[in-house]
C-alpha cells in the first residue's frame, strides 16, 4: 500500500538524501532523491509524489522555496515538507505562505517524522477516497442516466448541458413524478459547480416561518429555541446549487425575500443585522402553471421573470410512451438487484399493459408499480398477470361515473378516500394518488383536511 505513495527527498547533501531515503524505504515507501531543485523537477514530472521533503537551503540554483513552488506547479497535490537546520520564524512563515504543508527542523525525533508522514498520508487517503466517491456520485447523475429516446426529452437534455455551467436561474416545470429533481441534479453535476454542494429544499413541506429560517438561517436568540447561530440552505449551498422544489407554494413574504436574494445575492439571517453574501445558482421546480398563478395574483410577476430565465418543461410520461419499455426494463434490473429478487425481465404482454396505462403519477408511479410487481412476482419474469391490478384500476377509472361537483371538491374527496384506504399513512396515500408527499401535505393544508 505504501508503495502507492512515493516520496521525494531533495537535499544538496548526499548523506542526507541517502540516509533519509534509506530510513523511509525501511518503512516500505518508494523513495527517490534529488541533489538539487532542477533534478527534483525532472523527477516530479515523471512521478506523482505524495510527499516531497525539500531542504530550505541549497547553494547555487534554486533554493528550497523556489523548488517547492515549481514542484507545486507540476504536482499541485503533492504535500511539501520544508526541512531546515536553523529554525527561524521568518523562513517558516514564508515557507507556509508559499504552500508548504509542514516545516521541520533537522535533526528531528524519529517519532515526530514518522507521525508527520502517516498524518499526511491519512489525509491523502481520505482525499483520494473522497474524489472517488464524488466521481461515483457525479456518474449517478450524468445526462446519459436519464433514460429516454423521446426527441423532446433529448432536446431537454441538450439544453441542460448548454446551461449547466451558467449561473442563470432554471425553472423546471412538470407534473409530479416526471423527474424534476433528476434533471436539476443533471444540470448541477454536469456544470462547473459539480464539486460544490447541491442542496434541496422542498418549499411545500414547511410552514412560512420554518421555511424562512431553513432558507436564510437564523442568529442566536432570533426566536425561542434559537440557541445558536444556524446557517440556512443558501449559505450551505454557497458556490453550488440550491434546488427549490414546489416553488409555486411559497408565501408572498418569502416571494419578496427570495426576489431580493436573486437580485442582490445577499440576505440577512433571521434576527440578523449583518448581510451575508452568497454565490448560489438557483434551480426552481413546480408542478403549477406559474404564469397562471401570476395572472391570478398568487405569485409575484417580478419573481416569476427572475426565476424563469431558462425554462424546462418536462413532458408527462403519457406524452413519451416510447420511453415506458426502457424505463420499465431499467427499474426491473435496478429494483430486483436492490431487493435481492431474481427477476430477470418483463414480458412483451406486460409492457403492453404498461404502455396503455395513463400514469398520472408519471415515472415515480411506474417505479412504484414495478417494485410492487417484483415483490409479488412468483417466477423470474414479470408478466401480464403481475400488473392485472393496474388494469383494473385503469378500467374502473374509465367506467367511473363523475359526480356533479367542482373539481376541487373532487380532488378533496379523492384525497380523503386515499387517506382512509391507507389508514392515514400520508406516504402510502401520496403514492396511491400519484403525487409526492409534499404536494399531498400542501393539498391537505389547502382543503383543510385533518387526518
Amino acid at each position, binding site marked *: 500500500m*505504501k508503495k502507492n505513495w512515493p516520496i521525494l527527498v531533495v537535499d544538496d*547533501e548526499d*548523506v*542526507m538524501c*541517502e*540516509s*533519509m531515503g*534509506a*530510513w523511509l*524505504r*525501511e*518503512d*516500505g515507501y518508494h523513495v527517490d532523491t534529488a541533489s538539487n531543485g532542477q533534478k527534483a523537477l525532472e523527477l516530479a514530472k515523471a512521478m506523482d509524489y505524495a510527499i516531497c*521533503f525539500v531542504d530550505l537551503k541549497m547553494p547555487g540554483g534554486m533554493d528550497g522555496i523556489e523548488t517547492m513552488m515549481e514542484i507545486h506547479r507540476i504536482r499541485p497535490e503533492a504535500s511539501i515538507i520544508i*526541512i531546515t537546520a536553523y529554525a527561524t520564524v521568518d523562513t517558516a512563515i514564508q515557507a507556509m505562505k508559499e504552500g508548504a504543508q509542514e516545516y521541520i527542523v*533537522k*535533526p*528531528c*525525533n*524519529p*517519532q515526530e*517524522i*514518522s507521525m508527520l508522514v502517516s498524518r499526511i498520508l491519512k489525509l491523502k487517503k481520505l482525499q483520494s477516497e473522497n474524489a472517488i466517491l464524488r466521481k461515483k456520485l457525479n456518474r449517478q447523475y450524468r445526462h446519459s442516466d436519464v433514460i429516454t429516446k423521446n426527441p423532446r426529452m433529448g432536446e431537454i437534455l441538450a439544453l441542460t448541458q448548454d446551461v449547466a455551467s451558467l449561473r442563470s436561474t432554471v425553472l423546471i416545470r412538470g407534473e409530479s413524478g416526471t423527474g424534476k429533481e433528476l434533471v436539476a441534479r443533471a444540470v448541477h453535476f454536469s456544470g462547473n459547480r459539480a464539486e460544490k454542494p447541491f442542496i434541496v429544499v422542498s418549499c411545500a413541506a414547511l410552514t412560512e416561518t420554518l421555511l424562512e429560517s431553513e432558507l436564510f438561517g437564523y442568529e442566536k436568540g432570533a426566536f425561542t429555541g434559537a440557541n445558536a447561530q444556524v446557517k440556512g440552505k443558501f449559505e450551505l449551498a454557497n458556490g453550488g446549487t440550491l434546488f427549490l422544489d414546489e416553488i409555486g407554494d411559497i408565501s408572498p413574504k418569502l416571494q419578496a425575500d427570495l426576489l431580493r436574494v436573486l437580485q442582490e445575492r445577499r440576505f440577512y439571517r433571521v434576527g440578523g443585522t449583518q448581510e451575508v453574501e452568497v454565490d448560489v445558482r438557483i434551480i426552481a421546480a413546480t408542478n403549477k402553471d406559474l404564469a397562471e398563478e401570476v395572472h391570478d395574483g398568487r405569485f409575484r410577476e417580478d419573481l416569476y421573470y427572475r426565476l424563469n430565465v431558462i425554462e424546462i418543461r418536462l413532458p408527462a410520461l403519457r406524452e413519451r410512451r416510447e420511453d415506458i419499455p426502457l424505463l420499465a426494463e431499467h427499474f426491473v434490473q435496478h429494483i430486483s438487484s436492490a431487493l435481492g429478487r431474481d427477476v430477470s425481465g418483463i414480458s412483451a404482454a406486460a409492457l403492453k399493459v404498461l404502455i396503455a396505462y395513463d400514469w398520472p403519477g408519471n415515472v415515480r408511479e411506474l417505479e412504484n408499480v414495478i417494485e410492487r410487481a417484483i415483490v409479488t412476482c412468483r417466477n423470474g419474469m414479470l408478466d401480464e398477470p403481475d400488473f392485472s391490478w393496474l388494469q383494473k384500476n385503469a378500467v374502473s377509472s374509465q367506467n367511473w361515473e363523475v359526480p356533479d361537483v367542482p373539481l376541487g371538491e373532487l380532488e378533496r374527496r379523492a384525497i380523503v378516500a386515499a387517506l382512509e384506504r391507507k389508514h392515514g399513512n400520508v406516504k402510502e396515500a401520496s403514492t396511491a394518488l400519484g403525487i409526492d408527499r409534499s404536494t399531498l401535505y400542501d393539498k391537505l393544508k389547502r382543503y383543510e383536511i385533518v387526518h
Partner: protein
Amino acid sequence: MNGLCLVAIGSVPANALDWIEDTTAEWFPLPTRRLPPLSIPPSAYDAKRRQYQSVEMMKMLAQQAPRDASRVLGVTDVDLAIPMLSFLFGQAQFDGPIAVVSLCRLHQEFYGLPPQENLLRERTAKEVLHELGHTFGLVHCSDSTCAMSLATHIELVDAKAEQYCARCGTQLVHRFTTREETL
C-alpha cells in the same frame, strides 16, 4: 556466499556478540562468523551533535566486508544518527547486505537507570532481528509486538517480542526457500 558476518565497531560489551550469534543462529539459516573488530571511522563523528553518522559506518562496513559475505552486521556502542533524525537504534540497506546496530540507547544507564544485562540482551536481540529483517526485504510491520515494528523510542523496543510476527516470519522463510539466499 559466505554467510553472515558479525563485526564490532569500536568497543562493545563483552558478550554482546555472543547474544547476537544466538539470535541469528535461531532465525537465519546462514552460518555466522565473526570478523576482527574495526575501529570507529573518524569521519563518522559529528562533533556538533556528539553523535556518529550511521551512513559513514555503513560505508566503512561495505568497504571492509569480505566480498563473499551474504550479510554484514556492524555492532557499536556509540550513539548513531543521520542528518535528519536525532538518533537511530540501527540502520540497514533495504534488501541489501549491510546493517548496523547501536547498543548505546539500549542500555538502561542511558536513561539514568541501573544497568540490567538481561534487558540489554533482549533489546539487542530485537534490534538485530529488526535490522537484519530489512536486509532481507522486510518493511516495518503494523504489529507492535513484531520485531519489524518501527520503534522510535525505547518503550516501543520493549513492547516488541524477540521474534517476528507470523506474517513477517513467513515472508522470511519464503525468501530463504525460494530466492537467491544460499545457506
